[in-house]
């Protein structure tokens, strides 16, 4: 996974900056955005391979960002982060084209595995529905 480019999007800045540092220690090039608008700008500028996206954010929501990415850059995989205690929100996100989802708090091993899976499936990405089961 050396050189994998990931954009982490969450309005909890302390959380997302720390998570980015942990991913960098694992050889993953992780950038950070703290709202939906910043995420959309960074997707356009940096074209990450995977976007890890909080669902609930002020302003442009995670679902809005997901739909924008699916329209404009279907090759970019999106993994949703949900703070809800059930899988309902994540499954709904996958119906809208997310590759997969994780529930907060995340296990770093689970996240890196899902990033790996997402990039592994990149070749097969054609802009359709997300393909992984949680």
């Amino acid at each position, binding site marked *: 996974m050396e050189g994998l480019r990931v954009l982490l999007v969450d309005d909890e800045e*302390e959380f997302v900056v720390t998570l980015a540092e942990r991913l960098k220690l694992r050889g993953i090039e992780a950038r950070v955005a703290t709202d939906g608008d910043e995420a959309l700008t960074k997707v356009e500028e940096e074209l990450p391979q995977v976007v890890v996206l909080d669902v*609930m954010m002020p302003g442009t929501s995670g679902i809005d960002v997901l739909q924008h990415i699916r329209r404009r850059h279907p090759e970019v995989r999106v993994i949703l982060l949900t*703070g809800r205690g059930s899988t309902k929100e994540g499954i709904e996100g996958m119906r809208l084209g997310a590759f997969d989802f994780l529930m907060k708090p995340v296990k770093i091993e689970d996240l890196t595995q899902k990033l790996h899976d997402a990039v592994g499936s990149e070749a097969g990405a054609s802009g359709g529905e997300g393909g992984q089961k949680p």
Partner: protein
Amino acid sequence: MRQQEVAYLGRMTAGLTHEMKNVLATIKESAGLMSDLLPIHVDKPEVLKERFERILPSILEQVRRGVEISNRMSRLAHSMDHSPADVDVHDLLDEVVFLMSRFARLKQVVLTLFPEAARWSVSTDPLRLQLVMAAAVDHCLEGAQAGQRIAIVPASGQSRVLFQVLDADQGSPATEYRVGARPEGLSGLAEVLEELGADVGVLEFGGAVGLAVQLPK
């Protein structure tokens, strides 16, 4: 307990537990980072010390935030202990501002409480009064734009609480206003308002969105 009250409690509890998950997620990543750094810098204690001294305050801040959320959850739960009860209006509004701030933040709107110097109490049902105040905030949020704020102004002399949507550069709430009829959007509160002996009316001040909640004296 009626369905409206159950729905209110559910919504508030969901919001608070979501916030708590953010707190725990941040603590988990901070602790995880410390764990990651230990083997990397095992021969450089000064580097570890410098890094840990930066991470630890963040953990302590998240613990403080978690304790605050727990206290608010506890107060929400205990608001049902007695009815009627003497309710300090400022304390109640402070609870409502905390509980509703998350929903305001998602709309990029700020809630600002303008407390009066004197304390003011009413004998009423604490949960139902809180529900009415939260509904007033919701109503104002529907009419507010990103960047605006909602001023919450207790007016003990009139047994009212005023809710005014203000632009970011509008420093003080309006003092000249007229209270109109109950807005249609809040007609579902009729029964609760009747039980409380309270009322809600549109606050007319310079064409902006606002509400006045009339409390029982």
